[in-house]
């Protein structure tokens, strides 16, 4: 993947460069390197962002040393906090709204080795193609959002959501399916 943005973003107000293990695809936009304020990933590719993806104000990568995030193409992430010491995978055409939090546990802290449980798979959260995450939703370890599914505003999800389902509430419940 070609990195079209220099280590120092040209439009940035924050004077820190991007971490060296971050790659951003062609046609993608990141609001500031401030997104990596609490970034401690030591993995060879800590954050991979695909092409034509927008990461807007308020997005943060609060990764612990083993944290890894990959984001596909044509995603719009309008201010989500990703706090993990595991793998978070976001596929293509995903919409994520304001103040959404993706974390290993509800009590995770920024950039710290948040290892509470053991024996879990290393993938913490996965969001499949074309899913839509509403404002202030919380995705915890074990959340897997199926293709085209919708997570309502303020919903809390830590389970597998089938493709094209609609989830709402805290704790989240499947309340319907999307008409295709």
């Amino acid at each position, binding site marked *: 993947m070609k990195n079209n943005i220099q280590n120092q973003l040209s439009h940035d107000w924050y004077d820190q460069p991007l971490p060296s293990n971050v790659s951003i695809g062609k046609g993608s936009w990141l609001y500031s390197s401030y997104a990596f304020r609490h970034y401690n990933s030591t993995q060879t590719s800590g954050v991979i962002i695909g092409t034509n993806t927008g990461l807007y104000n308020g997005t943060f990568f609060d990764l612990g040393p083993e944290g890894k995030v990959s984001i596909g193409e044509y995603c719009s992430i309008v201010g989500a906090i990703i706090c993990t010491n595991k793998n978070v995978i976001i596929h293509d055409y995903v919409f994520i709204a304001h103040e959404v939090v993706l974390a290993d546990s509800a*009590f995770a*802290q*920024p950039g710290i080795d948040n290892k509470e449980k053991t024996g879990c798979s290393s993938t913490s959260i996965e969001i499949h193609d074309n899913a839509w995450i509403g404002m*202030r939703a919380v995705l915890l370890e074990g959340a897997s959002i199926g293709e085209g599914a919708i997570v309502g505003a303020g919903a*809390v999800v830590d389970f597998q959501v089938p493709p094209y389902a609609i989830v709402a509430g805290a704790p989240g419940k499947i309340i319907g399916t999307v008409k295709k």
Partner: protein
Amino acid sequence: MTTPLFFKILLVKRLGVMADKFDEIKGTWNYTNLPKNISIGKDCWFERKQSFDRFRSKLDLGLKIGSRVKVYTWTTFNIESRGFLEIEDDSILVGAIFMCADHIKIGKRVVVSYNVTIADSDFHPVNPSERIEDAIANAPYGDKTQRPVVMTKPVVIGDDVWIGVGVIILKGVKIGQGARIAAGSIVTSDVPAGATVQGNPARVLENS
């Protein structure tokens, strides 16, 4: 090494780049500019001065923070003129927005996660006609002294409580020692010590 706080602040101010050598206080901003009615204990860590932007308490002591408290970017001390917020030792505030008109007390070793709001008031009257008065008095150039009295009730959070992502805690709530509040909960009534609560409104989970 126990350098008095005052000298550390001076050093941080003078040397700027040296700031990172002090694990206890990071950031090159000048802590001496904080209002006089804020008391901060030893070895605290504050990420941004902006956390204090909405502090406007007129009490002799409006904000009291114990020792070794860690405060991240997203935390906001939104304290009104008669408000008093108290935070005890070793607490970690990741993203707490405190909306304090009366009194909020946070115990020792409390962990508060992202996007959490803790309020001790409704900030507007419930009665519709009083709310019209409030809207007029609260206009950009309105007479704010004419605002009606709004109900407030102190919030008390005990030691070792963990508050999950996106929780909202409303006025008058008392949370007992060691309780856990699951992500996305709206807490409207008291939580017993050691319990785990979840949902809107938050209810005690049976297996806790």
